[in-house]
């Protein structure tokens, strides 16, 4: 059987979350250990899938590409400006906003350093990314001045503690060059003479990558092939897939995809008016460009 489906970026996030919630590593960690998630639009749906409700924590995402620029959530900006150590040595390890699911409860507040001390091979760390290349390698934009942001610290800790790192990523994030090439181009971020928002570098991240294609395979056994991308009137960044397989596989895939259709991000992204923003690391701070108006 063959089916043609279209998923918006947000709908893809929901579909991928359904697959991750069913992944063996995640199930084991939920039963016997910790599922730690960097808060983001990609992991919001995973937290919702696992807990059955939207996380109500103060912070649900950190940085984002928005129509105006690379920007941060207001609550995270406040933390960064009131905790000078956040941008200095040891800053990423003091990050307190990871979602932690342990023994059926979701919490936020424990620092990464504390989590690293407790994490081991049965645990899982989940992080959304900003780029995937045609070979399936992924990269994360880093705005932190030192140490490669939180993900740099997570990757370093994983080498010692051997926990699983999973990167959910919709094909909306596809770039046409290798992550290595993109990372090399973005390496000189402190020498950027112009930037729309935070100056970012890109970090190549190793681990398990789960796209829409992998999600459909994990959930149903069906094969999904991307045949088109993009759209209009709210379908910008959409992916159109051809799903094929045994009748029962494709019918099951359609059921999951239809459940994901219409998904909306249930939390609000709080973005300060640029003219009133005090983020000294943003090159648009105080900016009055026409596209910066909310």
């Amino acid at each position, binding site marked *: 059987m063959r089916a043609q489906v279209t998923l918006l970026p947000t709908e893809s996030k929901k579909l991928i979350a359904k697959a991750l919630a069913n992944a063996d590593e995640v199930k084991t960690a939920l039963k016997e250990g910790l599922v730690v998630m960097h808060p983001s639009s990609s992991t919001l749906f995973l937290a919702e899938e696992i807990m059955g409700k939207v996380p109500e924590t103060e912070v649900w995402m950190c940085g984002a*590409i928005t*129509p105006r620029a690379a920007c941060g959530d207001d609550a995270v900006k406040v933390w960064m400006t009131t905790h000078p150590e956040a941008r200095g040595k040891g800053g990423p390890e003091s990050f307190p906003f990871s979602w932690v699911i342990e023994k059926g409860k979701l919490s936020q507040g424990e620092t990464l350093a504390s989590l690293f001390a407790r994490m081991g091979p049965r645990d899982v760390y989940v992080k959304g990314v900003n780029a995937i290349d045609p070979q399936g390698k992924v990269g994360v934009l880093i705005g932190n001045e030192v140490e490669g942001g939180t993900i740099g610290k997570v990757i370093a800790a994983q080498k010692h503690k051997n926990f699983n790192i999973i990167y959910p990523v919709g094909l909306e994030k596809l770039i046409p060059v290798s992550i290595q090439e993109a990372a090399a181009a973005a390496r000189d971020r402190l020498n950027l003479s112009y930037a729309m928002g935070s100056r970012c570098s890109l970090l190549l991240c190793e681990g398990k990558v789960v796209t829409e294609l992998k999600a459909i395979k994990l959930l149903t056994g069906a094969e999904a092939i991307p045949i088109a991308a993009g759209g209009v009137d709210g379908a910008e960044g959409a992916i159109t897939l051809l799903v094929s397989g045994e009748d029962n596989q494709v019918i099951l895939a359609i059921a999951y995809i239809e459940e994901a259709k219409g998904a909306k991000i249930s939390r609000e992204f709080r973005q300060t008016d640029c003219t009133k923003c005090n983020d000294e690391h943003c090159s648009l701070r105080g900016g009055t460009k026409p596209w910066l108006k909310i």
Partner: protein
Amino acid sequence: MLAQVVLTPTESKKLIAKATAKLDVVRKAAAEGLVVIHPSSSTYFIFEELTGAKPKTNYWVCGVVTPRGMCVEMAMTLGDRSPRSDKYDPGELRGLWAIKNGKVITESTTAELMKQMTAKDVYIKGVNALDSLGNVGILVGERGGLSVVLSAWKKKKFTLIFPAGLEKLIPIPVRQATMEAKQAMYEYGMGLPAGLFAYPDGKSITEIDAVKILSGAIAIPIASGGLGGAEGATTLIIKGTNKQVREAIKFIEQSKGAKLPALRLSNCSDCPVPHCRFPVGDKHWA
């Protein structure tokens, strides 16, 4: 000099339009020959850049991928333009935009325009898929005007230009995707089923090409996607001499905030398109 910029898909379309309109082959054809443009979100701004005015046709886009699924602009579904109408002939469509000898010409059919095309002329069409090698594919419903254009192109070899934002990237070769996308074999779809067709020739113009054409600077994509209206956005590093990068920033800033006209779609429950094999009117997301 180095710069980091973010463009939403619509802003990319505007930037690519500025570059397309600057190409010698396009400028010359617009001034002394014929430029034929297939109406779409990718070509809307090209018409504007070339003529200084918005297109005046009844519809500005034909087939579209929308949140509900594959669909067509409302005006395409009316009267003799419905592909399943007994009177429908793709060569008789009058929707293409055309600029001949510096003037906008209207009401010519696709067949009439193709008859006038010569090797020095240009046909511009938006696409639905782009691979990392720059190959493009377009989604094709039933009995579209594609066959009329291709038939003319095979004889006259006019220039084919495909504006294609990086939003359209797929991770596999377009040729491979076309082999899977045969709409007659679908047993489920979201709206109109469509196959994928790979154009045999032509030049795709992405944001990377656009920056190069407009300024001489190099653009390297470092991230993609976003939130709150930045879905499908591309984040680029621009590098080059101070003059080149400043020039690129100027064009990029001119493109920021670009908006397309509102899309008109029929209500699924009373849509007159007979070849929509998989209507989604009863689905919760529509």
